């Protein structure tokens, strides 16, 4: 089998454009996850009992579903509830919520892993519970949060390939349709792999730098 370089370069521009969409969906859903996750984690740690149970139930629900089901729900069911979103924004919402739920659990378990002594020391000084969590525990938990969070964000980028089912023109969707149009398989798959690796590699690199900044 020979590698067809001409086909490789012929289809590359379309996939590069598609990787722009992958990047946009990923960054927007990542942004949404970053806003939602601390809210979920803190309401689970600090909220009144009712809110705490509701948030926990929501987290367990989303974690129990394959991301594909969440995406399909956003695309097909939300319009019936009166919320009509384009495929792109459905993808951002679905991936953002899925990412937020996993990230929330990472934040919560990192804070809880600090042990009772840290919380008690802050309470004994006169910190209110929420202040203790925000001022004392969260800064300490940050270093434990970042590595697993990077992992989660890489997963989020990979999960954006699922948006091909709701016709978002990201890498996987464009790659698949190119393959069906042209029957050039290997060359296009290699391009898809390289583009994903570049995007995920960049995220990982940035997060490593952040980790180093935090630990020094």
């Amino acid at each position: 089998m020979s590698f067809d370089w001409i086909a490789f370069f012929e289809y590359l521009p379309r996939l590069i454009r598609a990787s722009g969409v992958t990047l946009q969906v990923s960054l927007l859903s990542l942004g949404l996850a970053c806003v939602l996750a601390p809210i979920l984690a803190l309401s689970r740690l600090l909220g009144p009992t009712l809110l705490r149970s509701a948030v926990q139930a929501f987290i367990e629900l989303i974690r129990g579903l394959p991301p594909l089901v969440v995406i399909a729900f956003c695309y097909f069911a939300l319009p019936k509830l009166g919320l009509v979103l384009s495929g792109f924004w459905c993808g951002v919402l679905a991936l953002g919520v899925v990412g937020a739920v996993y990230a929330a659990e990472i934040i919560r378990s990192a804070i809880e892993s600090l042990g009772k002594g840290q919380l008690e020391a802050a309470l004994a000084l006169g910190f209110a519970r929420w202040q203790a969590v925000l001022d004392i525990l969260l800064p300490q938990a940050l270093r434990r949060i970042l590595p697993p969070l990077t992992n989660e964000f890489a997963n989020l980028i990979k999960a954006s390939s699922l948006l091909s089912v709701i016709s978002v023109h990201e890498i996987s969707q464009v790659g698949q349709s190119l393959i069906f149009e042209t029957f050039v398989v290997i060359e296009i798959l290699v391009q898809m792999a390289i583009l994903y690796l570049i995007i995920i590699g960049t995220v990982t690199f940035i997060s490593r730098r952040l980790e180093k900044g935090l630990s020094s």
Partner: protein
Amino acid sequence: MTLLAANNLFKRFGSFTALDGVDLDLDRGERLVICGPSGSGKSTLIRCINRLEEPDSGTITIEGLPATDLQSLRRRVGMVFQQFNLFPNLTARENVAIGPRKLLGLSRAEADARAEALLDRVQLAGHADKLPSRLSGGQQQRVAIARALAMEPVLMLFDEPTSALDPEMIREVLDVMVELGEGGMSMIVVTHEMGFARRAADRICFMDQGRIVAMAPPQQFFEAPPHPRLVRFLENILGH
């Protein structure tokens, strides 16, 4: 003049009774040592005083006021833990300054100045910039004492402050505590350091099975122990 009055405290953990009707009074400036076998309720008692544990029943008043506002109660009552519980991401200075800065509204400069004066007082003047991981256990515990003092408490609670320390570091912590007591600080100290109790306590209290079994000034406590259970306890910890 009474600083602390605890009446008829009960606390159960499941089927275990940690406090079984405890009454305790403390005068301003008084230094009380609490000892007793493990599981006798001594830690639970002082943790109830600053409400890290909520007693099932009974009343506690400090300076005549019942504790309605937990945060303001805890600001007036300092606590030192067996495991130090310093904040590992903060330097010694920041550990001491963070309370006054976040809770008492001091500026960074004011809080740092207060922290440095206190670190000086616990003989750690040169260690302000070190993280807890670079301090010995004895040094960490002295930072923890400074951290509690930074809130200018009216009462200091010590929960087995030297139990996690190597023997040669116990002295430096106890010396700081003795000096604190001599300076007029009201203190309740849970400890098995009977030398400290003899040297620094106004009264010593012996607890067993959730009750205060004996309470006496040091001389009487050691020379004429007022309870047979206490006689056995003293034989066990002093006898070897």
